[in-house]
């Protein structure tokens, strides 16, 4: 957990699909659109590859916010992966909120390979929202 002089710095883990959102993140880089260094990306082939277990595990190990980013509906490189992801994470998100986890902490977004600015904006927004919430203690391991 990076804590700087300014106080609490959240850790954001982003699962990005290789074809759209990871390319969007790269484009944010090539077009120099800054976002906080709190964000760390894990590259997956498709949002449909993201297992809810990975998300819970990230929260357990200290992530304060988790993002799953994939291609826009209809644009999935694998045709249907993001549609399955949309169903899975729709109910997972409702469940987490029902259990009392703040909705801002777990986000799903569609970011295309041409949306570098959007990637950057989403990361800024997510980091700020989570920063306001403070540290994730609810799903975090005690040790």
């Amino acid at each position, binding site marked *: 957990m990076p804590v700087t002089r300014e106080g609490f710095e959240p850790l954001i883990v982003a699962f990005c699909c290789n074809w759209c959102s990871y390319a969007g993140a790269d484009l944010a880089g090539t077009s120099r659109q800054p976002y906080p260094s709190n964000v760390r990306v894990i590259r997956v082939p498709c949002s449909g590859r993201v297992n809810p277990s990975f998300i819970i595990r990230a929260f357990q190990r200290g992530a304060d916010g988790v993002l799953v980013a994939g291609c826009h509906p209809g644009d999935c490189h694998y045709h249907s992966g993001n549609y399955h992801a949309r169903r899975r994470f729709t109910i997972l998100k409702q469940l987490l909120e*029902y259990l009392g986890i703040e909705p801002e902490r777990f986000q799903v977004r569609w970011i295309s390979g041409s949306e570098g600015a959007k990637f950057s904006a989403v990361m800024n927004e997510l980091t700020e929202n989570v920063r306001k919430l403070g540290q994730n203690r609810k799903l975090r*391991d005690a040790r």
Partner: protein
Amino acid sequence: MSTASEKLRASAAEALACGRVSLVLGWRKKDFWWQSPVAFVEAAAEAEQLSFDPFSVYNPVKYLLEATECHEKVGVFVKGCDSRGINRLLQDKRLEREQVLIFGLPCSGKADPAKIRAVFPAQKIREVAQEGEELLVRLTDGQERVAAADFLLEKCLTCRHPNPVVFDELLWEPVPVRAGVDVSRFARVNSVAQKEILERYTYWARQFDRCIRCFACRNTCPACNCRSCIFDQAEPRWLGKASDLADTMNYQIIRAFHVAGRCFECGECERICPAGIPLQEMNRRLIMDIDKYFGPYEAGLDAGDSPPLGTYRGEDPAGFDES
């Protein structure tokens, strides 16, 4: 002895005697008045032990997984809830329809021993039997009749399918659905959902804190029928071994997620939980969301349909910010 039990015995004895099946799953009476565990009957002569009483609540369906490995065809008695478990196994390809002979038992609900104990002194109760709409409570010093409806298990109060949805033979006439179940089905979920977010967390943290990770909820659940459960695997270690609240939440979230769209609301997980965790409130929350986002769906009614988490529609709404 009630005619219901007699009908069970006769059906089982007949099926075993003529060789239609080599094993029948039902219930038998055990040492205490509130115990009616699952019985395994392999010969017509043993059918006498079968009993169908206010406590024949256990779902015998999960035993079919092992039973069908060493028996070509197994007879099984099922209540409405149990029968949906059969469809669960059929849909999950864990069972073939020809492997089972299903005796359907329309069921107007099973009794909650705790509710009986709350009214009658536990030491005095010797037997509780169903007589029509009433429970006959035999005490050490006499007997009393009470309305069975007042002593129903929580899960039976919200039962939408008291009659078996799949069977070969129905042992008696179907029973009506209890009035008001549709309202009460999600009442508890809604009351939790209405709490403030921190209150919700505190509520669930208090519940999960009691979890001893005995996995009884998983073991009893016919939807949890994997050959090897991820929670038992070592590499990757999906679930930590520490009895830590975060690990418990991990377990409970993923367990609920794995039965999402597949849970058919038998409520055995919650009834059997030694820590009294209201697991149905999680399962039903998922059912609510599935109904809301993907269209109404009830699992276990039709083994031929497609569970909502294996399919999709292009125009599905998202339960998150899609902007």
